[in-house]
């Protein structure tokens, strides 16, 4: 009988503990939700990152045109590139009012990755903590300290049109001003 009572007691304690843990978890979620309902602006962490002055807030992929390109202009019209010339593409990552630390990465597809791309990247530099490179992916972090200091990371991608010292024959009738130069993808993920 005593044994039976002990068993019942153990069972009861286990059930109570389980209920306590579950309720605690759900009550935590509930209270957060309650706070969201009452003071949304102050409690939901802001997520507003600008890349080259364009706000990147959606979870879907956005398209941004980079105008901050400084290219050789000797004997070449400004805003155009020709074989054997080089320049730098500048990308700025501005966290603006973002309140959470985040990791960001640039995936660069140049001539070494895709032969159809005209440009070859020679180096990538930035103003904050040096980016880590893994193949053609360059990664950086915006810490809470960076956010508090209002830091902006300026990333410079040095590239050139490698003609291998050979003349490139041009068919005037086949030329297109819009070419497949380079492909750059940006991604930012909140740090946990």
């Amino acid at each position: 009988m005593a044994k039976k009572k002990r068993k019942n007691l153990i069972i009861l304690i286990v059930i109570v503990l389980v209920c306590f843990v579950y309720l605690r978890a759900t009550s935590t979620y509930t209270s957060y939700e309650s706070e969201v309902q009452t003071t949304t602006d102050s409690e939901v962490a802001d997520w507003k990152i600008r890349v080259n002055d364009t706000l990147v807030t959606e979870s879907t992929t956005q398209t941004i045109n980079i105008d901050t390109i400084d290219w050789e202009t000797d004997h070449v019209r400004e805003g155009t590139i020709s074989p054997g010339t080089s320049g730098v593409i500048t990308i700025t990552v501005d966290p603006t009012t973002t309140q959470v630390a985040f990791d960001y990465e640039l995936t660069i597809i140049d001539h070494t990755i895709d032969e159809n791309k005209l440009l070859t990247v020679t180096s990538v530099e930035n103003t904050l903590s040096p980016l880590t490179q893994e193949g053609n992916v360059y990664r950086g972090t915006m810490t809470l300290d960076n956010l508090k200091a209002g830091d902006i990371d300026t990333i410079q991608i040095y590239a050139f049109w490698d003609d291998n010292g050979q003349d490139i024959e041009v068919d005037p009738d086949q030329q297109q001003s819009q070419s497949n130069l380079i492909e750059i993808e940006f991604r930012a993920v909140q740090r946990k």
Partner: protein
Amino acid sequence: MAKKLKILNKFKKENIPYFEEKKRFLIVILVMFLLIVIAIRLLQIAYAAYESQAKLNANINQALYILEAGGMDFNIDLDKIEPSPDPYIYKFSISNFEGNRHSDVDIEYQINLTTTTNLPLRYELYRNENYDEATATDLFENATIKQDIDGAWYNYLEGTEKYLFPYTEDMTDIYTLVIYFPEENKATTDYADNLENIEVEIKSNQVTE
């Protein structure tokens, strides 16, 4: 009645371990289910995070290389060419634009002429001037006789200079090709029905230095 109760009690006593075991099993299942539910909820809360993506386009164009030759489809009428005191005149032009398309690079070019040696013709080339002006300058030096891999002989006239087209302005050069077939060849029929081939080569490249 009492006997029935005794049987029931006996039955109940005999089946107590079975029911207890069943109860324990159900409790364990219930607890495991609740733990799984909690774990999933906690994971969902931990997994959720902000994420954004963007595709960046380099807003720069490939420079256009435009060198347009106009009037190059002139034909020398073989039925009409004959020794004559007057030269045969052909004009053509070279430009660094075509319609509303303009070259985006500085271009330098040179003109060379290659002909067969079947007819005793003499060639002169003039740029942006009349060939019969006293100050006109023939752009060709003396012809060089060369033999190709097939053993055919031909004249090679190389232009003396390279000319520059800067991308900053639209430019056109007018050329006059003058071909002489000396009149003294009228007395012979050696060249009758002979064919002559004339090739004008415009050799150009982007200026890089």
